[in-house]
Structures are given as structure tokens and as C-alpha cells.
């Protein structure tokens, strides 16, 4: 629940942003991180950017999320 996902700000108007992580895009807000700029990598939690994050950290997290997703799919096959 407290998991925040790294994503890049690809559109920004005021505090309303569109962010991208691993090709998935969704709306988020930068109200809690006013210093965030277009092109920045940020951690998104429950629709809000909470922290800036560097490239290395973002890539590691995306890789981990990909692994978890793969594992969940295997589990679904096992139980389904």
C-alpha cells in the first residue's frame, strides 16, 4: 500500500501531470512536490508525486516490479 512507483513526468500543466513508467501512462499530481519539472523522474504514490528519484533507482524498481508481475502471473496459472 505504501509502495510508490517511479515514473517520468511526460506532461505537466500546473500541478497536473501525465507520468510514464515502463510504457504505462497515467495521470498524477505534483502538489506535494512543487519542485518537480517536466522530464523529471519521480516516485508516485496513490496518484501523487512524493519524491524525486534518480535513473538508477527507477530502473532497479521497474525491474523488481516486472519480476513480481511475472511471479504473480505464474501463481495465477498455478492456482487457476
Amino acid at each position, binding site marked *: *500500500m*505504501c*509502495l*510508490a512507483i517511479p515514473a517520468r513526468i511526460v506532461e505537466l500543466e500546473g500541478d497536473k501531470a501525465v507520468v510514464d513508467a515502463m510504457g504505462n501512462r*497515467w*495521470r*498524477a*499530481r505534483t*502538489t*506535494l*512536490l*512543487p519542485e518537480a519539472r517536466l522530464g523529471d523522474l519521480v*516516485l508516485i*504514490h*496513490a*496518484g*501523487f508525486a*512524493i*519524491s524525486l*528519484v*534518480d535513473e*538508477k*533507482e527507477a530502473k*532497479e*524498481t521497474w525491474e*523488481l516490479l516486472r*519480476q*513480481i508481475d511475472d*511471479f504473480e502471473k505464474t*501463481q495465477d496459472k*498455478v*492456482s487457476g
Partner: protein
Amino acid sequence: MLERIYRAQKVMDEACRTRGRQINIMEVCGTHTVSIFRSGIKSTLPEGLKLLSGPGCPVCVTDQSYIDNVLQLAERDDVLIATYGDMIRVPGRGGSLETKQPGANIKVVLSSDDALQLARDYPNKKIVFIAVGFETTAPATAVVVRQAANEGIENFFVLSGHKLVVPAMRTLVSQKNHRIDAFLCPGHVSAIIGYGAFAEIVRRYGRPCVVAGFEPMQIIEGLGEICRQITADKAELKSIYTAVVTEQGNTTAQAMIDQCFEPADGYWRGLGKIEKSTLKLKGAYAQFDAIERFGLSQEPVEDKSGCRCGEVLCGLIEPPQCELFGHNCTPERPVGPCMVSSEGACSAWYKYGRNRKKQQ
């Protein structure tokens, strides 16, 4: 990378030898719990080092009375419930949101912003936002409460289940029978509150507090750092999640919480009533408080299901020690919240522990 793992393991071995008894480290973050199980970290630890899953999953620590209030509200024709997906399957007395009538007045939202939008879209309904979560999530609630006030929206209410991590940690180490030697502190909560927030636990209770991210390498090195302190017979405050966490945290988010909420006494599953551990809407924002608006009770109710989530959350037992685990309580048919939430200790044990057995 292997070298870093070996180095951390060496430090852990040394701590176990120095301490001469079992070392118990509690992780206070559901994301850590999942990462620890998924990566198989437990099996790489020395025998004398044990990890306890603490109250780090917001859904799991939510008291039964809160869930009952949600279910009660869901029965009202004039109410539309807006909830994060995590809460849908948590059982209360008389079912869960999921078992309510199909098409009932429940909407799953991904953010507090979506919940407020429902208030604009359904002006004839009273929207109740099921606001659970620690300090990571509370600022997002605060933002939309302020927005609702600014826009003069009158059909938006918040059932605040927001909780504060440090008061729970304080309660755990104040209990007589606790066996916690150190804390692996949550990464994303700390992004908001800053690692400085744990100073009190280090100073007053002499417990090392180390903030780590949730990649396995971060967790292993976090445990290594704790063990280094234990060997040196020291308790220090440290963050190794330097890419994200600062000592002060996100001060904009903290200010947002302070403007809308005040700390209030509240109930936690397993831990009981904890002084100033929950967030209650204050001042002009109290008009958005669902407890006040709908006259709900917050007194705890007795759980007769036999579920031992409370003891699991305090690190007193491990999930398989609960009689219901794996038989009457599974992720498909959960009895307690630690099995419902994907970040709950019981769910992690069931999913990843079971899989490991299959692989052997």
C-alpha cells in the same frame, strides 16, 4: 553484487556470534515483507537472525470497528463509497465490501483525486472516501480535503483511517514481552516523514533504526548495517535509501498533513489504543469528517473469528502458528486482514512460502 551480499552476511554472522542469542529485527513495511519473501532473503540469513513482520501494512492494522463502519455506510442509499482496492476484500462483521450486492454503491479509486471527482460527478450522493494508509498516503487525502473546502464541495467526506508509524513502533518496544532488537524502517513512509523521525526510537529505546528501500540488495545491506551496530553494541539512526529519503523528508507533504489533520488517540488491530497515533481532520476541515457527519462509533469490537493477525502484527507469532492459516484462511477465502492484503505477512507466507516448498 555477490560480493556485497557476502560482506553483509559476514557482518550478520559476526553480530550473531557477539550477541550470543537470537537477534530479532522487525521490518515495519508491508513492501519490505513482500520483497523479503519473494526474494528468498530469509533463507540466506544466519540461523541466529530472525525477521519479524511488524505493523507495516495499513490494511492489516485497521481495526475491525473501522471496517464495520465502512460496511454500515455502504448500506446507505444516499452514500457512495470511494475506496482503494486493498480494502474491498477485508472482512468485517457481516461480509466485506466485495460481498455486498453487485452494483452496490462502491467505487474503487486509484487516488484521492478520483474520489473527489466522484463528488463532482454525483452531486446527489454523499461520497465517503475510505482513507487508509500511513504518512505516505495521508498527504494525498489532505490535498483533496483542502480542494473540497476551496471549491465549496459539500457532499465529500473522509473516513480517516490514517495512521502514524512512529507511535506504533514506540508501543511495540514499550510492551513487556516484546523481542525486538532493531527496526528496518519503511522506505516510502520515510520519504515523507524523513529518517529523522525515528531518532526517538533510537535514543529512548536504544534500538537501531535503519531505513532501506525495498530492492533485495537494499534490504540485505540494511540488515547488515543493523548487525554492524549490534556487534559494536550501538544503536544508531541511519538511512541507506539515499536515492529517495532525506533526514527532513518531504516538508510540503508534512505541512499538508499538519494543515488538515491533528494526531488523535486511535485503535490498531493487535496493538489496541495508541495515544496520538491516528490522524483526525481538524478545524474548518472537520466538516468533512465522516465519523462526525454520520455519527459513527469508533469503539473496538470483539473479533470472534479466531484470527490471530494481532499477534502476527506485533511479531509475537508467525502466521503458520495461527490455527486458521492455510486451512480456513487463505488469500481466496481470507478471515483476517493480514491474509487479504497482498502486503500482509500471512498472504506473503502463504504465497511465497508455499511456492518455495513446491520448488524443493
